[in-house]
């Protein structure tokens, strides 16, 4: 290497400096790095990407609505990020293991999450619902960046087991500042572990624009750690699929970690508690609306004559069914019994906690007796 290194150009905010296969207008273009990974991309693949994204958006819309109606405590919308989530996640094998953050609705959908899995945690019934081993996907992580290390550790386990599975971590542009994410790159590089880091650069970490975290492209960091990276159009589902296939293949073949920065946009508020009008321009949001990931594939499908009414109504029906399922899961939820707060703290008997459980049980009992007595 040259002894003196100067940073690459300051293009952190150049959202068009990305690898891409479908233009915002829906035109299919070629990319030298990506083409070979989507040679199988026929109409039916594009239709299924479209379908998944529409369904994910429906889950998201339903989540926002349920929150507004007081059925959920909070919701972290993923609108705008469907391509980054669905596109990358569709590249996994089912036996790969994924460590998502709280916003990866689309990833979890592709992994096989059930309707209840999207809402019960936000409703406050459980911290998580699905068994991670059922869908090979960890509980969504709230502590920013922590899961990047978990994915590396899981990948170290894969290495020891000698299989060709891959672990992956999803995190945001904000998370890229956390020590954990950087240490994850150090460990992954040191052990050459089969892990893929997907950084969803949606331009915002709550109210902070990505330029607070990075004046230079986040994808430019990984190579310094010895990790090849790709900066991809996160609103182009096909490009995301291709990039992830590249990264997974690289890992599966024993070449170690890879890093993908998916450049996209958080169309909604950070969560339903957030008020983005305090910190960002409507214009910016409108500019990104014209890059909508679903509209983009729709345009391509239309151009290819593969967006007929039959397809549309199939997708709409599936979306309606899924939306109804999510709604029902929220409305039909029941809470654990009070004493249930003590469940699953430890895997093995614990004298201290059993005693406390007993005390609280006695309290609850006495309380109900008292209630009755009054």
């Amino acid at each position, binding site marked *: 290497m040259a002894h003196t290194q100067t940073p690459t150009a300051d293009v952190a905010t150049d959202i068009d400096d990305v690898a891409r296969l479908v233009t915002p207008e829906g035109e299919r273009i070629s990319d030298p790095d990506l083409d070979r990974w989507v040679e199988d991309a026929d109409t039916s693949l594009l239709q299924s990407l479209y379908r998944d994204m529409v369904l994910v958006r429906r889950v998201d819309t339903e989540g926002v609505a349920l929150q507004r109606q007081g059925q959920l405590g909070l919701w972290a919308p993923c609108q705008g990020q469907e391509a980054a989530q669905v596109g990358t996640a569709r590249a996994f094998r089912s036996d790969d293991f994924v460590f998502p953050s709280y916003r990866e609705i689309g990833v979890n959908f592709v992994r096989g999450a059930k309707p209840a899995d999207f809402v019960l945690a936000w409703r406050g019934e459980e911290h998580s619902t699905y068994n991670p081993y059922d869908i090979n996907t960890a509980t969504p992580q709230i502590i920013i960046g922590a899961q990047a290390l978990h994915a590396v550790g899981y990948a170290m386990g894969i290495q020891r087991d000698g299989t060709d599975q891959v672990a992956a971590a999803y995190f945001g542009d904000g998370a890229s500042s956390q020590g954990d994410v950087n240490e994850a790159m150090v460990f992954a590089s040191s052990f050459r572990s089969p892990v893929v880091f997907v950084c969803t650069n949606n331009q915002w970490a709550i109210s*902070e624009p990505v330029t607070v975290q990075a004046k230079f492209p986040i994808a430019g960091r990984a190579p310094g750690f010895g990790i090849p990276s790709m900066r991809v159009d996160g609103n182009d589902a096909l490009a995301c699929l291709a990039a992830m296939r590249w990264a997974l293949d690289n890992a599966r073949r024993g070449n170690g970690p890879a890093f993908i920065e998916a450049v996209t946009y958080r169309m909604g508020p950070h969560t339903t508690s957030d008020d983005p009008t305090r910190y960002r321009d409507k214009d910016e949001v409108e500019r990104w609306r014209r890059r909508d990931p679903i509209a983009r594939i729709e345009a391509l499908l239309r151009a290819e004559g593969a967006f007929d009414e039959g397809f549309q109504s199939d997708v709409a029906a599936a979306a309606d069914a899924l939306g109804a399922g999510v709604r029902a899961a929220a409305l039909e939820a029941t809470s*654990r019994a009070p004493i249930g707060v003590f469940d699953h703290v430890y895997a093995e008997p614990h004298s201290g906690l059993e005693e406390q459980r007993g005390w609280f049980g006695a309290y609850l009992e006495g309380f109900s007796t008292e209630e009755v007595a009054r």
Partner: protein
Amino acid sequence: MTQLTMAKAINEGLRRAMADDPKVLLMGEDIGKLGGVFRITDGLLDQFGAQRVIDTPLAEAGIMGTAVGLAFRGYRPVVEIQFDGFVYPAFDQIVCQVAKLHYRTRGNVTMPITIRIPWAGGVGAAEHHSESPEAYFVHTSGLRVVAVSNPQDAYVMLRQAIASNDPVVYFEPKRLYHSKGEVDLDADLADAPPMGLARVAREGSDVTLLTYGAQVTTALDAATAAEDEGVSIEVIDLRSISPVDYRTVTASVRKTGRVVVTHEAAREAGVGAELIASVTERCFNHLEAAPVRVTGHDIPYPPAKLEKHHLPDLDRILDAVDRVLDRPNSLTGVEL
């Protein structure tokens, strides 16, 4: 005197401290344009500019470590940790640097850092957003730890914390952010009760109820309810939980002979343990009954729908009051 919410009182405390001393800086995630996720820093970016209200990258160790460097340079950083559950990445910098640098440098370097932590539960939040980590800091020598319970204290004690040359962890009960109270915005710090002083929030003669933060409200409710049953509870709002004002505490315990402590944090090695151990040591001959704790269970904070079964409420406090008074209670007949 002005009627303010606690959130606004803290906002005014920051404003005043910044106006009084140009070395005071605010650092944190989303504290600029957004004004913080709880709007505590609302308007301060506009008033004091981006050099003094610093939206930092998303990294708590980074925030705390750079605050240490700024303190080395003579600044007085006020750090906002966005939620209680996100202070842990900064724990190393707090325990090994913030708390120890004055000692390490034989007093040559001061660490006048205020660490503001929106704190504790009862607001129906997601995991990691309702933590009560105060005991970790109370156990850390070199720090001071305060917890406020009303707008006036919030305003004055924040200014005192910022003015202190020692590092202060300042806990703000989230569930009281919107509660209102009278605040004297012109309060002179010289006249105000020192940050380390406890306050008798309600006088009483039968039982001393020790608490801090949002639990002060619950404790006062319990005292009111107990009065109906003819029990007189003295409620002490500790305000400072490290150091604790044992003069006020022991005076009360010597009078009542019975002690209940309540806090949201887990019981095991919590602040309540310290209070009971200290009170027992200091007032053993005055105690008529074993002091009792009413705390969160020794479990991770449960999902929001279950938090009411975790947080000590009025009924659990009254049950403990019955216990120290040797009246029938949930543990009657239970062998401990």
